[in-house]
């Protein structure tokens, strides 16, 4: 039996009321993350992966709201907390890392000031202790000569170094969960590898659970233990990363894996596997399975009924192809 989940999301539904009706951006999503585990969340733009992260850290932009479901952190329900209490949890127990390190840092304060302020907010230490801790954090995330760099402003750091500072900020109060939304997307490949290695090491050494949101299957393959594939706000597939990559169950995951160019896999002028069409807009999600207009394996039931996540091997796949396998 796996350890008690650190984060548990059950039946999450995120809605955006608009004048032309309510858009459902995340629809009946359930998953859990264990301590020390890295859960990858992949999907294409508009799949709802970032909104899921935002819902968990309590930063959904109104009019977006959680319309149903529950989010539990270490057993405690956190989706209905008043903003002030949620603010205490954010930073203390949940750290957040966003895509663009420039917008996550205040350009008017030195990196050290921002770290010290965050530490003072969440931990009961004095200013000197906070500064010592800030120096240790900068060293831990791989910034060389932290004593010299701590009084620099964000613009004096390069992109990769800035993202390290953002990670240090997220780690200030030793949170038990880190929500990382596309943490490597704005970085060059050589820097990407460094940041990924850092995230992995943190999860391993501190037992921090990481929710890694990205569109990059390669990053997931390297970093995550399990992966959730999202499509049109719904869970398409969830399973151990090896299984999902080598033996994708859901036709969408299979198409997604095939459409990624791989070095040496195809000869020049061979065609990539292609999923025709595009993900439906939120106001036009088809009945039944949301993937049915693009699915090569669809049949009658896919148009009528929405598939529940079904157990296939060690994975869950929301696909009617596996309805018989269960019985």
């Amino acid at each position, binding site marked *: 039996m796996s350890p008690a989940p650190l984060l548990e999301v059950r039946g999450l539904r995120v809605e955006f009321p608009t004048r032309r009706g309510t858009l459902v951006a995340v629809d009946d999503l359930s998953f859990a993350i264990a301590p020390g585990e890295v859960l990858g969340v992949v999907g294409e733009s508009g799949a709802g992966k970032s909104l899921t992260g935002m819902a968990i850290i309590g930063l959904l932009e109104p009019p977006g709201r959680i319309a149903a479901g529950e989010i539990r952190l270490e057993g405690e329900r956190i989706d209905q907390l008043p903003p002030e209490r949620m603010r205490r949890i954010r930073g203390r127990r949940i750290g957040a890392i966003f895509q663009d390190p420039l917008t996550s840092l205040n350009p008017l304060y030195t990196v050290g000031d921002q770290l010290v302020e965050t530490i003072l907010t969440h931990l009961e230490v004095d200013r000197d202790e906070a500064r010592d801790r800030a120096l240790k954090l900068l060293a831990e995330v791989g910034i060389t000569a932290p004593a010299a760099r701590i009084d620099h402003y964000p613009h004096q750091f390069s992109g990769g170094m800035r993202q390290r500072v953002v990670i240090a900020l997220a780690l200030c109060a030793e949170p038990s969960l880190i929500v990382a939304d596309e943490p490597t997307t704005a970085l060059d*490949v050589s820097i990407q*590898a*460094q940041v990924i290695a850092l995230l992995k090491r943190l999860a391993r050494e501190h037992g921090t659970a990481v929710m890694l949101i990205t569109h990059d*299957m*390669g990053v997931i*393959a390297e970093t995550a233990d399990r992966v959730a594939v999202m499509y049109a706000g719904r869970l398409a597939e969830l399973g151990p990363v090896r299984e999902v990559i080598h033996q994708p169950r859901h036709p969408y995951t299979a198409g997604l894996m095939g459409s990624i*160019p*791989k070095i*040496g896999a195809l000869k020049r002028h061979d065609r990539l596997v292609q999923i025709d069409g595009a993900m439906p807009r939120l106001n036009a999600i088809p009945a039944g399975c949301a993937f049915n207009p693009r699915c090569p394996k669809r049949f009658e039931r896919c148009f009528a009924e929405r598939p529940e996540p079904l157990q296939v091997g060690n994975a869950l796949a929301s696909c009617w192809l596996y309805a018989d396998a269960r019985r």
Partner: protein
Amino acid sequence: MHAASRPLVHLTDVGRDFDVSKPWLNRLVEGAPRQLLRAVDGVSFDVKRGETLALVGESGCGKSTVARLIVGLYALSRGRIEFDGIDLAAPGTDAPALRRRMQMIFQDPYASLNPRWRVRDIVAEPIRVLGLAASPQAERDRVAELLRQVGLAPEDGEKYPHEFSGGQRQRISIARALSGNPEFLVCDEPTSALDVSVQAQILNLMTELQERLGLTYLFISHNLAVVSHIADRVGVMYLGRVVELAGAAELFAAPRHPYTRMLMDAIPDLQMTGKARTPVAGEVPNPLAPPAGCAFHPRCPHANARCRSERPLLTGSGAAAVACHAVEERRL
């Protein structure tokens, strides 16, 4: 040289500087010198007819600047660009006439289409500017044909860009680029803003169009996997210089320059062979103060005294060329 064997595009020692000095008054008060950023420095290569040459490198390596120099969006600081054997900058050259034979596709399909124009007008603009259609009817027919060619419906011409997804917009960009009947397409990160499943559609479309229309591509990308799929030959750039130029198959099977090897090692391993990615120490240096000698030496595990002082030149036999002292001295 015979016209068919002559390269379509030929760059000789091309360079481009950008003046990034502080304003004149600041320089006067602070005594600060003029500062020039060498975005592209001594780049030479050929693009042969019908092939796809890809330029790869990290941000700031100058790959997009090379693309813009070729199509004439930037002026050259040094060197020569020949198109079909004619020097584009020579006095008396009808450069606009030559540049009609090339077109460009940009990275961001949201920024490169005028939101106030209907798609049919966007696609027809090159036809009108170049006077390629004899009558309004001929123009309409041509636009419909182009839209069909890129996988859209002729009726889509009546819509505006905001009604399309990112992938469809990139199809519109391609239709517009094709409407002037170009021989040469410069594609600057054409799929970087797209989701992978849409990227596959666009890459497949570009391959099909190349086969059908005999196009020549210069393909700029930071994504090595995409490049390995689409390119015949690959040039790897670092800090404004080409460090390795080789056939795609050779380059990906046996990269020679230490920087190319580093880039290859840094690609996420999707096959999950268990091979650990080697995180590379260090970052691209400040291009305002590039290191002396080989620009890569501060990050290179094979650097020696010569690498720190002497700039390596791109040398090699025909198919594969590399700019590295270690390779030249057979230390690597």
